[in-house]
């Protein structure tokens, strides 16, 4: 197991394996999303309280979940990179950040579109989840800004890994403090955690899996680009590009 893991961490090996793996995530993921979207938009019955507006959860929930997942990946790979000095881990962090920021932004947009018919306003400062998500977006911006302002890649890798780790400790505190704060001002959150019908839940579950798979393939593709850039001076990259296949 350990040996396999180590082998995977070597850039050329990863580059080969990920090329095979990426389509196997992308194609089924897209099919699942298409199926889930069709189910969610046309098949599932209308919610008796929210009408058709609730259907946005089929995009909103997966993107909110992935926005946090991406941050977790970023912080974990940062820790791995710092502790075991695995260079590939830092490439994972660098690749995950923009995708995570994208999903955070998507979650905020869909949340706000959902909020308009529900609250009568595009933005509700009192909702703890929207606030946490907004702060998460700022954390992503900070991470990417720090990365881009350090010229030396190894230094940028380590510095941003420290930031991601400090951030992950703080995300939890942010969440609880925002929750406490909104309980003072609102008394209750807008969405109650109600039970969902099974026929509503199954498409959501499909969407979650589909989104995660597409996210995985996006991440792999970005890591591949990142690896290729970082290893551009090495022999394996040169040989691969000069080979008859031209490096796929």
């Amino acid at each position, binding site marked *: 197991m350990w040996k396999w893991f180590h082998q995977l961490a070597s850039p050329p090996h990863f580059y080969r394996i990920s090329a095979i793996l990426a389509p196997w995530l992308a194609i089924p993921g897209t099919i699942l999303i298409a199926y889930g979207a069709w189910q969610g938009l046309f098949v599932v019955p209308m919610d008796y309280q929210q009408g058709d507006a609730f259907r946005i959860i089929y995009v909103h929930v997966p993107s909110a979940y992935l926005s946090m997942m991406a941050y977790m990946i970023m912080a974990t790979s940062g820790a791995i990179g*710092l502790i075991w000095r695995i260079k590939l881990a830092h490439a994972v962090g660098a690749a995950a950040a923009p995708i995570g920021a994208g999903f955070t932004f998507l979650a905020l947009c869909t949340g706000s579109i959902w909020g308009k018919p529900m609250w009568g306003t595009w933005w509700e400062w009192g909702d703890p989840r929207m606030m946490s998500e907004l*702060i998460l977006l*700022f*954390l992503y*911006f*900070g991470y990417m*800004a*720090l990365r881009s*302002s*350090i010229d*030396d890649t*190894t*230094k940028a890798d*380590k*510095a941003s890994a*420290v*930031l991601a*780790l*400090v*951030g992950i*400790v*703080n995300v939890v*505190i*942010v969440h*609880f*403090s*925002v929750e*406490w*704060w909104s309980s*003072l001002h609102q008394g209750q959150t807008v969405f109650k955690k109600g039970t969902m019908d099974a026929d509503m839940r199954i498409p959501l579950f499909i969407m979650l899996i589909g989104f995660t798979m597409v996210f995985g393939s996006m991440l792999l593709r970005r890591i591949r680009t990142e690896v290729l850039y970082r290893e551009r001076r090495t022999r394996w990259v040169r040989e691969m590009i000069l080979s008859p296949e031209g490096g796929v």
Partner: protein
Amino acid sequence: MNENHTIEAQRENPGIFSGLAATTKRDLLLAWKRPGDVLNPLFFFAMVCTLFPLAVGPSAEQLEFSGPGVLWVAALLATLLSLNSLFISDFEDGSLDQFLVSPQPLPVLVLGKTLAHWLTSGLPLVFVSPILAITYRMPLSVVGVMMLTLALGTISLSLLGSIGAALTVGLHRGTALLSLLILPLAMPIMILGANAVSLAASNDIYSTGIWALGAYAIASLSLAPYATAAALRISNE
């Protein structure tokens, strides 16, 4: 010179408290010789507090309502302003290099510096804030709570900010970047502090906020110096 002086073998390094005390003392001495560095953030604090009534209007009701929030936002910004220079001069004159090869553990030296930073930025804010709070018509009983939250909160802000200052030391666009890195992390501190004061003003139970701020301060006291030390090593590579 004593020609038969010999290099003594294996002496014990002094304890960490002597390193902590020496670093704090040195930075306090430096602050004493350059009072502007201490006073500027204080003026900034007072200035931001002046801006709000001018922008929002001077009605007593509004000031009373927004006072805790305004004071806390101003304190947060003032601390951020002073954090910028935490490591810059040490970085430029090579003191930081010497810290890195010092026989004292780096987190201890960092803690000493951060302590001095709090004594010269957070603590003065705590003592200046009542004057501004009274202009915002805050009752005296609430002023005490506010001072307590500011004291606890600025400790955490100094410690948390030192991580950001260490990450951005030596970068060209360090100033703007530092705010971008630290503000999201500092939000919980401000939420806890400002809301505890608001609760006290409306005669509610505010102890939750104080306890949480205290817990935050203790947690950052024990963790932040290690993160800052790691960040300094990375920045100075």
